[in-house]
């Protein structure tokens, strides 16, 4: 067995996982809200792609529509649901859980429970000597890296990012400096959901698109955040690499079941032994 394709497959899974986790992390870090419907937003992104293709639109149109549609959905969810309960963090888990059930069933009603297929924009493989690898997977990896880098740039280098980090660190002081914290929450929520939608659309040609696909990314996404540490954004990179990498490589080398069980146990152990995450700092507030 050639080892390079295995690592490339693992890398593309890791990158998608990081995209999903990044959206979760922005919302969690910013508002303290655990969005259990995040996996369903990812799933809806993939279904937007299914819809786009069924109307004969090109793949790129799907990639543009997915974050727009899902981001708008995020706006509606923030205004209609999260806004009312973000001071009750445990209730946000339950309420978004209810939302996740409702969204899943909505998709079942609209598309049926069976899985849908999405055709990738390019079919061919890159062939270099003996090595060959699907081109779309390489595109996916490039696009994911660009998106992750872009998100980091927004939060670490722009004025918006400065205000967002201020709101995370000291929400009351930020408000007293004239920063509209509610608006920052809403924008961050929309960015997080749009990222999930885009990730769903990007990965759609590679996986089976079905109403249950969200949970398979939600739980690993959360574990990535907790493993890496919910403080600095870079924690997601470490957490996603560990969770995604262990899962993917063990699945190939041993079996998918062993991989899943092993990764959950490793993640839970890390979280238990280092509750602040691998990169989390214990700085005093």
């Amino acid at each position, binding site marked *: 067995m050639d080892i390079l394709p295995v690592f490339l497959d693992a890398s593309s899974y890791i990158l998608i996982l990081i995209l999903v986790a990044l959206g979760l992390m922005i919302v969690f870090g910013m508002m*303290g809200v*655990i969005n259990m419907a995040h996996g369903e937003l990812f799933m809806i992104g993939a279904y937007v792609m299914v819809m786009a293709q069924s109307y004969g639109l090109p793949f790129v149109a799907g990639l543009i529509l997915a974050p727009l549609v899902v981001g708008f959905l995020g706006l509606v969810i923030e205004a209609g649901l999260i806004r009312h309960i973000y001071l009750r*963090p445990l209730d946000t888990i339950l*309420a978004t*859980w*209810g939302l996740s059930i409702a969204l899943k069933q909505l998709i079942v009603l609209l598309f049926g429970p069976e899985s849908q297929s999405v055709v990738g924009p390019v079919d061919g493989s890159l062939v270099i000597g003996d090595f060959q690898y699907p081109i779309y997977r390489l595109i996916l990896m490039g696009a994911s890296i660009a998106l992750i880098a872009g998100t980091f740039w927004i939060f670490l280098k722009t004025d918006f990012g400065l205000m967002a980090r201020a709101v995370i660190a000291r929400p*009351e002081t930020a408000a007293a400096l004239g920063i509209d914290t509610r608006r920052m929450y809403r924008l961050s929520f929309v960015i997080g959901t749009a990222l999930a939608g885009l990730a769903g659309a990007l990965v759609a040609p590679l996986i089976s698109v079905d109403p249950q696909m969200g949970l398979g990314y939600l739980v690993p996404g*959360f574990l990535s955040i*907790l493993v890496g540490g919910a403080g600095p954004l870079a924690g997601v990179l470490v957490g996603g690499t560990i969770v995604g990498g262990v899962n993917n490589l063990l699945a190939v080398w041993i079996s998918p079941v062993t991989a899943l069980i092993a990764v959950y146990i490793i993640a839970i152990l890390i979280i*238990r032994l280092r509750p602040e995450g691998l990169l989390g700092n214990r700085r005093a507030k």
Partner: protein
Amino acid sequence: MRNSIIGIIVFSVLAVCPLFVGSYWTGQLTNYLVYGLLAISLSLVWGYGGILCFGQAMFFGIGGYVMAVFTKGMIYPDLTSSYIGLIAAMAASSLFAVALGYFLFAGRGISGAYLAIITLAIALVLERLMSNWYALGGYNGLLNIPPIKLVLFGLSYELWDIVPTFYIILGLVAVIYFAVTFLVSTPYGLLLTAIRTHPDRLSFLGYSVLNIRLSVFALSAAIAGLAGALFVTLDGFASPTLIGFTLSTEALIWVAIGGKEMLLAAFLGAIFTRVAESWLSEIFGDYWILILGIAFMISVVLLPKGLLATPFEKLIGKKRRAIPPPPAEGDPSPARPLPPTPDQ
């Protein structure tokens, strides 16, 4: 005391149900009673103990599998007593809870949102594990689990018939309901309230927060394990779905809709949701789950104490009071109480 009067009324109404509904509904209601017992266990650990467990079905499933293994004589062919099975089921669930609880709560324990995610992950792992544990039937589970066999003074009676089964289960559920209701009215209940609201202060007073958490976690697991054990004797089979994600979620919905801080409301939440599901899923078909999800969401947002508990509290006329924080100059403002830390 009006609380227990309402409890008596509820159980009396349930007791006369078989006279009015047919045997099909009596059988269904028996199942719902068992789900109600699971709801009571979740209400105890979550509403009273403050431990939000997203994987309560794992204890239910463990109880179910242990009961199946014992009564099918898979370990000791001679020891197929239902009594031993029930006790073993409760013991296994609570031992697992103690081990898991120690792992989760000891030292700088995990709580709040992190706990929810981790218990959900553990339930997913267990479900996957059971699906691949071929000695225990793997994905198909264990079939032909015998019904409960009552043995008293040398006489034995197997619970095959619907109506006697209903009354035995109802009696058992009622006993546990009243026992737990009594328990939370003792000083132990007060300790639970204190641990939910101000765990740090309790440890200053010399109580072991860990031991109290473990005790309520184990007790709740034992009740859930009993529910699981009863359930497999009714259905005759135990499958990985008993242990995992879907049932855990359903239990959360029942308890949240009913009211997590009131055992009776949680119990009735399970029964009402299941009855509503049987009726409404015929009328609404696939829309039922959509409606349930939305109802769950709305009840969490608008009625955080629960759909049933809110009118109940009015009826009883007493409110469980939280200890108000003392006012102080420079008290951290409650306007946004959460930095998302694992210790909150």
